[in-house]
């Protein structure tokens, strides 16, 4: 259960990034989580929401993209999603495949909105 620490790192990154946009506020932070990253998305969301509750970031939305485990075949170069731990190449049946995705724990993007521009759903930070 280290999702609290992960949520905290996400919020630290948002606050750091926002120093570059003093005229704006953050609306949405996009993160990518691999299915092999040992992160429970629901626990992360729970921790994230608990941490922003009644703070200046209370309206910040967390968008989570789950990334499947992907392998690339060393023989034929085919890239494929690994299901049920079957990492054999579906094209040439080779077992020599290497993992190229699935342990992501990444910040993908941040959506920011200028203060005063009236967008539906945007809340003031007061």
């Amino acid at each position, binding site marked *: 259960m280290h999702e609290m620490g992960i949520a905290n*790192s996400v919020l630290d*990154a948002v606050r750091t990034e926002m120093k570059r946009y003093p005229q704006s506020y953050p609306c949405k932070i996009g993160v990518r989580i691999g299915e092999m990253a040992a992160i429970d998305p629901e626990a992360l969301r729970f921790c994230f929401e608990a941490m922003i509750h009644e703070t200046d970031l209370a309206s910040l939305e967390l968008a989570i993209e789950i990334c499947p485990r992907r392998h690339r075949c060393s023989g034929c170069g085919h890239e494929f999603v690994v299901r049920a731990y079957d990492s054999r190449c579906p094209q040439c049946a080779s077992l020599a495949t290497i993992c190229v995705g699935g342990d992501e*724990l990444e*910040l993908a993007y941040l959506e920011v909105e200028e203060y005063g521009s009236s967008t539906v759903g945007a809340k003031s930070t007061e």
Partner: protein
Amino acid sequence: MDRVPLERKVLSENDRIAAELRARFQEHGVLCLNIISSPGSGKTTLLERTLAALTQRDRVAVLTGDIQTENDANRLKRFHFPVKQITTGGTCHLDARMIERHLADWKLEDLDLLFIENVGNLVCPSSYDLGEAAKVVVLSVTEGEDKPLKYPSIFFKSDLLILSKIDLLPYVPFEINAAAENARKVHPGMEIVKVSCQTGDGLQEWMNWLGERRKAHKALMETASR
């Protein structure tokens, strides 16, 4: 509305410190291994047997992590190698900053081998790079043989699986071949060593693995310094 691409790791601060540690380990030729398992799988006992088999010429040190108590450090200090306890006070894993802090008064040039015994936990330690050359996961036969499937991340990221307490196999319904098969489903080609710290079975195989790793690490250092 503007979308700003970030494209960096969530734990980039941890990873930055880990990368610094890795560079320092490389500079001084230290092989660092991060040992991970559930609580009670036998990490400390394995380290006791390992330290007992090494000599002072081996220049080994241990950082051992727990939420509370100095018990593990006290057990490991009996072998007269440098040992330091990291008590996290509640945190369920070690992070790179804790390693950096606890290494501060050791001279890396005096070491060849550093064991980090992580907090007993199969989940969270898998997310935190400590600058190690390899992770080693320990699974005891009193656990389930499906653990690699239930906790794939750590089995996926570890170079070696140590199946421990094999002296108990006659008394527990643990299918050791199924455990190995499950580990290799998650991590094709994973190296596996079966040990009993009570009878000593398999310990030589583990020491051989360690010896091979140390040799390979040294060769890598020599190539890098050329």
